[in-house]
Structure formats: C-alpha cells, structure tokens
C-alpha cells in the first residue's frame, strides 16, 4: 500500500481492469447488454467499444442463456470472454451455462478442457429496485464445485481481482454491487493483481473478528470505528474478497486473537456463505470460539420497494454494531 494512488469510483476500477487486460491479451473479449456505446447500465464499460472496436466489445441481445453459453463455448477454444449480465437476478437465466456447463466441462471431460470465462454481474439492494433487481446470490454459485466466486468492495481490490479473474483458467463469477459503482476509493496508477482465494484484513483489532464483503463491508467498517470510538471495542475486519475458494486461514488466525466472530453480508442467512464459514469453524476449530458466533444478514423476505421497508430489510452499521455487542457481552 505504498502508493495509494488517486481516488476513483468503483465503476472506473472495473473499467480499468477490463481495459488493461484487453490491451494485454487479445483473447479478452466482452459482450453483454448495453455495454457498447451505452457503456453498460452502470458505466463499467464506458469507452471500451470506442477504444477496442465492435468485434471485441459487443452489444448482445437480451439473451442471457446465450450470452453465457457463448462465453463457455468461446472459452473452451481459448478466448477469455468477460460477459456482463445486467443484474445478478438475471444470472438465473444464465445459470445453466455457468453452473451446469462452465463449472463442469473440465471435470466431466477428465481434465481435457479449460473454461477461462468471467461472468460479471451487479447485485445488491439499497437503490429502490425492489425484489427482482436487487438480490445477492453469491451463495448459489459458491455451492457449485468448479466455480470461483469473487465479491469485492473496494475499488482497488476490484481492479486487482478482476485482472486475476480474467487470467484465471477457471470460470469465475464476479459479483459487483449495484449501489456501489459510484463509491470512491484510492487506486494506484500502476497495474496490480491480487490472488483469488486470499482474504485481506481491512482493519486490525483484538476483541472481535468481523467478516464482511461486498458493499456491506462499508457498514462493517463503520460499525467497527464507532464501537472503537464510543465503547472501546477493538474489531478486526476481514474482507474475504474471494468467497470460493475461501481463505479460512485468515479468519482462523484472527479468531486466534479474538475468539469472537460476527459475519455480515447482504445476502440471506439461510444457506448463506456466513453459515458456511461458521460451519467450517464449528466442525474443525470450535476451540477457537469463546462465544457463539453471530450473523447479520438481510431479513428473509423478497426485497421490498418502499424506502423504510428496504432499509429495515438490509443490514446496516447499527445491526452490525448490535451483533458485535452481543458477541462481546
């Protein structure tokens, strides 16, 4: 972190990664709905068609099954497609190509093929898009062996991880947060990559380990600051960055210090990644826990439209702080 670099918004970090990788490797190609002249509904591909042309940056029809299916077929023959599915909710249309085909093609063939495809998609609530344009479905893809799943929050991480995802020879589901594209953060000028499967300690602490990702990480950091300032509770905040493969070692190391665990994510608790992390710790490292762990997640309900309802449904710094107090107390 020697050079923090200039401040960029999250969308620009994504765009930077795409641009750098497209310059670096001709086999990197993009397609998706409205990603050409329009630059994607969240501006993640602005200017890329102008720079790289209509062959390498393609506007696709509203055909998620084929958008993802073509990605798999082109990856099998050596391209590195990065396709955008406009909303993570629409990944359900594309999920046969991702979960049935991309994830399994190598294994089913006895290791004969590689599928280096990246499926980018924005999910998440907080913008009043209601139940079918706001879901966080990282757990769905984490469940499938053969897929890597990345859920970055900070622009710098997003750029470095997307570059690695594109270079990875396995299919990667890269989930961005829709209400987060204008979030600002520092990003160095020089190129950098981060390994998939390595977590990052975002804040050092000694009383509680707080694991959080995607946009919820912002609320986690806010809660941690507040508890430190107001109540003297020292919270260590970990961003796994990649949910599969999961860097459990980083969490375990922190638990060795704190013995207390809170996990906060915007997706639902039931069968979620937070539950998986707790299960893995309970199965093999229960002795590390001094208190029962807690999860802070979305209320199990389709996400409502109305602002006070949506606010009530999603985790925020207050919920997270309350959970930490329970675990500490």
């Amino acid at each position, binding site marked *: 972190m020697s050079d923090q670099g200039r401040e960029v918004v999250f969308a620009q970090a994504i765009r930077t990664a795409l641009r750098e990788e497209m310059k670096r490797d001709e086999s990197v190609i993009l397609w998706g709905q409205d990603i050409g002249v329009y630059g994607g509904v969240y501006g993640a591909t602005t200017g890329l068609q102008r720079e790289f042309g209509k*062959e390498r940056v393609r506007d696709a029809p509203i055909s998620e099954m084929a958008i993802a299916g*073509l990605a*798999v077929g082109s990856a099998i*023959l*050596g*391209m590195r497609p990065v396709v955008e599915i406009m909303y993570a909710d629409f990944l359900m249309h594309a999920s046969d190509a991702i979960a049935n085909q991309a994830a399994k093609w190598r294994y089913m063939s006895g290791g004969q093929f590689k599928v280096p495809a990246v499926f980018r998609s924005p999910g998440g609530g907080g913008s009043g898009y209601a139940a079918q344009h706001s879901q966080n479905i990282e757990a769905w893809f984490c469940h499938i062996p053969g897929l890597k799943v990345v859920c970055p929050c900070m622009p710098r991480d997003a750029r470095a991880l997307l570059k690695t995802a594109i270079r990875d*020879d396995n299919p990667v589901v890269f989930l961005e947060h829709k209400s987060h594209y204008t979030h600002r953060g520092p990003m160095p000028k020089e190129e950098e990559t981060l390994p998939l499967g390595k977590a990052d300690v975002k804040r050092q602490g000694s009383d509680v380990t707080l694991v959080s990702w995607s946009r919820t990480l912002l609320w986690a950091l806010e809660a941690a600051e507040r508890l430190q300032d107001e109540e003297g509770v020292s919270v260590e905040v970990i961003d796994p960055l990649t949910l599969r493969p999961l860097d459990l070692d980083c969490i375990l190391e922190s638990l060795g210090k704190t013995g207390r665990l809170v996990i906060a994510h915007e997706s639902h608790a039931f069968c979620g990644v937070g539950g998986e992390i707790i299960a893995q710790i309970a199965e093999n490292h229960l002795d590390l826990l001094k208190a029962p762990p807690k999860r802070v997640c979305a209320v199990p309900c389709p996400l409502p439209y109305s602002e006070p309802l949506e606010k009530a449904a999603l985790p925020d710094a207050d919920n997270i702080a309350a959970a930490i107090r329970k675990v500490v107390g």
Partner: protein
Amino acid sequence: MQPERIEQLLHYYKDMLRIRYFEEKILNYMLPNKLFRGSSHLCIGQEAVAVGAIHAMEAEDYLYTTHRSHGHTLARGMDMEAAFAEIMGRTTGVCHGRGGSMHLADASLRILGANPVVGSNIPMAAGSALALKMQGKPGIVVAFFGEGALNTGACHEAFNMAALWDLPVVFICEDNQYAISVPEATAMADEDLHERAAAYGMEGLRLDGMNVLEVYEYCRASFGKTRRTGRPALLVFDTYRFVGHHTADSEQYRPKDEAIEVLREKDPVHFVEREFLEDCLVDPEKAVDIRLEIKEEVEAAFQRALNGPWPDPEKLTEGLWAESEVTCDE
C-alpha cells in the same frame, strides 16, 4: 457407380456397422449384465446422419454432440475401447470415468463434448464458432441435437446470435420423431421445423436422414457454404430411433410394431446393404465378411475395455480445477 464411390460407401457402411454393433453390445450384453450405470442413449436407426455428417467435416472442424453421442463420436474416430471404458466408468475411459455415456469428449479429435442438457450445447457451439472467427482460424463448428432441443430458449437465443454475428456454425437437428415419449405433433406448434431458421435469416433445410450418401452430400454442401460465407445454417434430418429413448425406456408411447415397420423399411444399415446387393457392387459373401470383421473388432475393443482398471477414489477431484488444485476451502 464409380469405384471411389463404392469405396466411400463401403467406408461409411463399416462405420455404421461399428456404431450399430457398439450399441447392440450395450443393449444386449452390457445392460443385462449391469456393466454401466445410469442410462445410455442409443442411436440405433440414426447412424446415417452421424456417419454422413461427420464424414463431411474436415479435421480442422469442431463438434458438439448430445446425450445420444455414440454415433457422432465413433464416426469421428473415437477409440472404441476408450468409449466402452468410459461407459463402464473405467480410468481408461476417454474422460477417465468422469463423464460416462452422456459426456463423451475427445479434444484430440476436436470433439468438444456431449451435452445432455437439451439445447445447452447450441449456444456453446455458437461461442466456439465465435472463437474461431475472432482468432482468424479456419474451420467450422457442427452441433448436433434432437428436435426436442428446438423448443428450448437457449436454441432460439443462440440461433439469433449466430446469425446476427455471422458465426461459422452448422446446427444439425436429428429429428427422430420423439422427444423421449412426446411425438412432434404434441410439442411443436408448427412441424416445418427447418422453417424456424428463416426467422433468423439463416438457411434451413429439411432432409432425408436415412441415406448415408445423401446425408454426406447435403452436409458437404452446407458445411462448404458455411466455410465460405461464415454464415450459420440449420439442417433438419428426418430419422428414427428404433430403440427406446434410453436403455430403461418401456416405449409405451408408440405402437409396438411402429419401430419394427420403420426398421424394415428404412434401416440405414440395410439400406446400404440393399444398394450393394441390388447393384451387385459388392459380393454378398464379402458383405458377410465385413460384418463379421467389424463385429470382432467391436468385441475385441469391448474385451480390452472390460479389463480397464477402475479409477482411484483418492483421485476423485482430479481434473476439477485448471492449474493448481484448490484445497483451502474443501
């Protein structure tokens, strides 16, 4: 008939016999002796499409097939022992026992894989064609599927994108009349299936799939056109499967004698034999010798496959990840 034409017909005849005997071995020996798991989808009756179309491909071309893949893969040259071994789940199988009958693939023959999720190989084939186009490589992609796949959303999305983006892919629909148990009239709003191509500005042809030489000629012409123009095409071949959808099919959805009648009339293997005999192209005794020779070849491959070792359960996850194996979360 010219001598080279007779040679060609003999070559195709042998390939069709190989497929027929391979599948009869599955049906008549491996099934009762429980030598494979799950089910196996046979193409008995459909061999002319597989052999005619595959021989119209060049070595540089790529191939996607379906759950009913034995015809396509064997015609393309898949080693019979490796195919049998795969179906029996042996480590000597072409996919080391990871795939089985429904997932035969062989990168060395450019068989990119069999896809038993109906319709899902169609977008993948278009994607592979896009890769060839972007890389400036020669070759086309040929994707086989049954008529049932024509009703999937994936199929229509991919037809549109293949035509829109000028992708060098030929879609071959093997219309065997039944999608498992459902006859066309029950599932197709319009039975002129090839006309669906017109909606995407793509050439669509409906052709007889029981005469292997005709299939070859049709495909040769169509593949050549796609090679020249880079445009996709849809070929619908009328064919018929004489056996059930898979090896566990009771076939109560069609009259008992229907298959026998079609078999008697249209069996693509008998069709070639009739051509031989009627036109005195091949000595009848030679035809018998050929049959025996292929039967022995299939039997020998089967016996070798039967001796193949089982995969090591310790290596269960091998081949899941490209590059280094990921173990930190498992």
